[in-house]
């Protein structure tokens, strides 16, 4: 039978072509970003850049590297993630295990969604106000605290989504064997949701490493690797930002290379999260 071409078919074909074009443009642009960062950053990337701290006049085209920013970012995001984990897990339990499907739970989820949407600059400004109130200076510790606040909604909301996915029959089976809610939460829910929980933690870690506006005023910037929680700390995104503002081409080049380091770090975290999630999902009962 010959296919009849109606207006509807033509419309379908036309929309399909438009969608294909839109997808191509978008995927092309997104791929082009990674290619641009690699092509422009790679020529400036050498061992010195990632193993040395800035020497005298680094921001005027002098010798040195960005080790201070790499270590600073890892400390800031690592500290923030650790603190946020200790706060987020109880919150996620509180919503999921002890509040249930009530109206309160959906109110709390809404509050978390709003918090997730708040610009990181606003968190930075908030942190800065608190710092001034307590007479603190820009420091690694203050940066970690602000990142913690920024990471909590991301972590809790992702953990919450995974915990909701766990079939309630599993917890009910534990209850029927006499387990309390606490025991069921730790031994059934956590184990069952573990791959998702790890993903949530690494997602928050990635956001913490990449965020600049929140640490701009709270962590400060320093050419030295921080020695204590009270000393200011550099971070990769801010290092990129400051180097790109320079009139010297070599310094801007280092900025491109720094952006490349940051991107590779994020890609690595993303892959690690995928790998761990697959590894850990072997313990999950389906």
């Amino acid at each position: 039978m010959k296919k009849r071409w109606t207006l509807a078919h033509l419309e379908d074909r036309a929309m399909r072509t438009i969608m294909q074009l839109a997808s191509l443009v978008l995927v092309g642009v997104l791929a082009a970003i990674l290619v641009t960062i690699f092509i422009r950053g790679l020529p400036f990337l050498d061992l010195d850049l990632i193993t040395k701290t800035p020497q005298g006049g680094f921001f005027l085209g002098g010798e040195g590297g960005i080790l201070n920013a790499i270590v600073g970012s890892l400390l800031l995001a690592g500290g923030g993630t650790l603190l946020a984990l200790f706060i987020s897990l109880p919150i996620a339990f509180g919503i999921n295990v002890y509040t249930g499907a009530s109206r309160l739970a959906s109110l709390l989820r809404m509050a978390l969604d709003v918090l997730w949407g708040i610009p990181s600059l606003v968190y930075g400004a908030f942190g800065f106000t608190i710092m001034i109130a307590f007479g603190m200076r820009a420091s690694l510790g203050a940066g970690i605290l602000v990142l913690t606040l920024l990471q909590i909604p991301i972590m809790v909301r992702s953990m919450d989504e995974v915990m909701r996915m766990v079939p309630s029959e599993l917890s009910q089976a534990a209850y029927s064997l006499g387990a309390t809610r606490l025991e069921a939460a730790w031994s059934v829910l956590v184990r069952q949701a573990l791959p998702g929980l790890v993903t949530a933690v690494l997602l928050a870690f990635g956001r913490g490493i990449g965020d600049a506006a929140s640490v701009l005023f709270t962590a400060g910037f320093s050419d030295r690797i921080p020695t204590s929680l009270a000393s200011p700390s550099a971070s990769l995104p801010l290092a990129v930002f400051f180097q790109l503002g320079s009139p010297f081409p070599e310094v801007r080049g280092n900025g491109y290379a720094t952006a490349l380091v940051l991107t590779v770090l994020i890609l690595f975290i993303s892959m690690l999260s995928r790998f761990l999630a697959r590894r850990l999902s072997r313990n999950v009962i389906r």
Partner: protein
Amino acid sequence: MQNTQDSKLHTQARRIRKDELAARNYRLAASFPLFLLLIMVVGFFLRTQPLLEHSSVWEILSGMQWRPSAGEFGLLTFISGTLSVTLLALLLAAPLCMLTSLFLVEYAKRRALTAILPAIDLLAGIPSVVYGVWGLLVIVPLVPQISSFVQPWLGSIPLFAANNPTGYSILSGGIVLAVMISPIIISVSIEVLRSVPDGLRHGSLALGATRWQTIKKVVLPRAMPGLIAAIVMGLSRAFGETLAVMMVVGNTPLIPRSIFDPGYPLTALIANNYGEMMSIPLYDSALMGAALLLLVIVIIFNLGAALVLIRANRRAQV
């Protein structure tokens, strides 16, 4: 025998006590987000108070003059900067993202979707500063060429007038933001579209509808609230973005008339002036007011999206 019975009861009581203690602590912890939100709003409001005693809300929101040393704190220039960049980003990103996610879910092969999904999630995690670097390297040099290309046709329309020889413009900011938020929008939209039951599609196709008719009449009405929520998520990211925009938008305190004009968003205002704000009275208060404005608008966006979702869910249940 009696003894073991006793100790058993004892452990049981201890376990239950432990659970009740945990319930109290975890519930307390769960209220933390609400508490934090409240503290942030109240805190910013208190810090803005000195400015509000000095001039009215309307004066601040509609004032064009930003001269801290003269005691004038009009935010209109910066509000218009933020709005124009965000709006442009939304106009560019929303249609492209909707079309792309529809194509990936409704037309493309399952295998293509599962291959592309991790890449999209990965791009959503790329720091905004990297998008800023790309904007500086690619978009800013490109914009003057776009401008001179469209001048012969559109130059007489004020929206496209070329008064700015550099590429640091609203358009650059809009493009960078649009690209930055599209992985997020696509990722959420795909999730939403996939949650539409396949049975609905099959029913429509079995009645002889084309795929596009199915999308138009069956899939989109069902998925609309979720898609709106996805766009709002992207919108609030674009709205609050700081460094990526600051790098490409020009930071000139003028109300932009054309997409090729430079602008000065609220976020850039706060970030650029933080260091010196303590020296002039009310300056700090005005910047906190700008932060409060950002906070309030994001809260309104999110509550609006949540209401749309809740109403849609209620309708779906009936």
